[in-house]
């Protein structure tokens, strides 16, 4: 495939599990600094798309280019190192470590075996941790064991861990699940802040929340794109209405 100006170019992406096509010839482009939301009914293939991009699942066919680098052949850590960050549906943090340590572990230095053995906590690390902690509203909790955080705070912490890596593309799977209304608002602000110098893909069910953050929305259905575009346009799309109501 040809090179593009897009941060992420997904073309003809297909994956099948025992013949069942969870993602079927999907083509999608994400711009620089864009915040894209993936919506769709359960089983539409949203999470699978993220899995494919970050290498958790291997594709059957098609290509994924990130800054014109083919990702489908890379292993997970190589994809991450090339600048893609992924947050999971359930908050995935190291519960035995403190908030500080969680962020520190995510700092993109000392990633090799020997690098990690000789890694030192420099002022640079310190500054970066504090800055991210401030972003995710956890400055006060830096020394707390992260298991003690509230559910919403854990979600933020995971986002913070991704921010530590300064990814160019951030993928968030249901970042506001289990959050209070106030936390949702804070998260929306957070997302709007962080997409200023990177692209973000979000999977979300909460349409109110989607409205607050989405630049563009992609509706998936049975592994295929049903509609794509700004929120208002998608909401008005008849196919989309049918799928959602008929569901």
């Amino acid at each position, binding site marked *: 495939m040809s090179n593009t100006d897009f941060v992420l170019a997904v073309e003809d992406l297909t994956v099948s599990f*025992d013949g*069942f096509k*969870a993602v079927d010839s999907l083509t999608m482009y994400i711009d620089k600094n864009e915040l894209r939301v993936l919506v769709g009914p359960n089983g539409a293939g949203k999470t699978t798309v993220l899995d494919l991009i970050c290498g958790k699942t291997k594709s059957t066919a098609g290509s994924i280019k990130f800054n014109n680098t083919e990702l489908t052949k890379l292993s997970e850590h190589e994809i991450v190192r090339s600048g893609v960050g992924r947050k999971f549906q359930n908050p995935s943090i190291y519960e035995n470590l403190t908030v500080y340590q969680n962020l520190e572990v995510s700092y993109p230095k000392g990633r090799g075996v020997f690098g990690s053995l000789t890694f030192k906590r420099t002022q640079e690390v310190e500054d970066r941790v504090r800055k991210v902690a401030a972003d995710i509203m956890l400055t006060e909790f830096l020394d707390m064991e992260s298991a003690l955080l509230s559910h919403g705070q854990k979600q933020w912490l995971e986002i913070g861990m991704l921010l530590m890596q300064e990814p160019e593309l951030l993928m968030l799977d249901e970042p506001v699940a289990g959050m209070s209304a106030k936390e949702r608002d804070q998260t929306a602000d957070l997302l709007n802040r962080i997409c200023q110098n990177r692209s973000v893909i979000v999977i979300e069910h909460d349409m109110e929340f989607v409205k607050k953050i989405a630049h563009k929305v992609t509706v998936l259905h049975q592994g295929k794109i049903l509609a794509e575009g700004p929120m208002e346009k998608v909401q008005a799309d008849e196919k989309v209405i049918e799928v959602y109501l008929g569901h």
Partner: protein
Amino acid sequence: MFGYSMADIGNIVVMQGFSGLSMFTVLLLMALGLAIIFGQMGVINMAHGEFMTIGAYTTVLISKVAASYGFTDYYFVFAIAIAFLLAFAVGYFVEFIMIRHLYKRPLDTLLATWGLSLVMQQIFRSSFGAKEVSAELPEWMLGSFKPTPDIDIPINGVFVMVLAALVTFGVYMFMYKSRWGLRVRATVQNRTMAGAVGINTAKVDRVTFALGCGIAGIAGAAFTTIASTGPTTGTLYIVDSFMVVVFGGAASIVGTIASAFGIAQAQSILQFFMTSSMGKVSTLLVIVTILMMKPEGLFASKLRK
């Protein structure tokens, strides 16, 4: 193969085929109970061999009792039933006092059941002495069946084969055709959900574990016809049993059957053409190599993760 007549070679092929089948059923019987306990429940039961030994000693004792009443012909059927019940009962008890506290720590079940196996070995030694004993086999089970004068089909091999088939069928019916089996599978797949729909998961666990032990007891009883009975007999079987289950893909009973078949044929053939001990090593090496490449075993259920 020069210097042998065609008839010789033909006979050997038949008998070798049987010996492969026979080893297959032995491995299958060994592994079935473990396939339930380890494969379905995730408990790494290192005392599996000792549950087999319970069955073996039961058979020996009953053969002695039967002999003193002049009732040696068909005692074996009773022996198998009692071996099952006894191993089942011990398994039930062990689950209750020990295993149920460890379900969330599978690797710890390995250590605890290792301790259990030591204790059981010493119980056997204290009760039956350190020496090996043998069950007096009924006349009809000795010797061989001869379709032609030059072909011998061991009757005890046939017996183990039939028993393995029956037990496998029974396990299949139980797991896939009975309400109990449904509960077991439900509990294994989603404990919380199973509990929520009114399944007594604790009881299901206990019965399932005990069932696996009971089947080990049957295997132990059957093996008195082909091998030894002593306090440490169980240790002869444990690694082979795990190999069969793991190689087959832990959660799959079909996998266990397939893997028992594959391992038995490989070992049987290799041991024919190499020395016995190198045949065994080669078989293990092949298994380990395949497992390294396909860690989920032969018949892993493909899940969309």
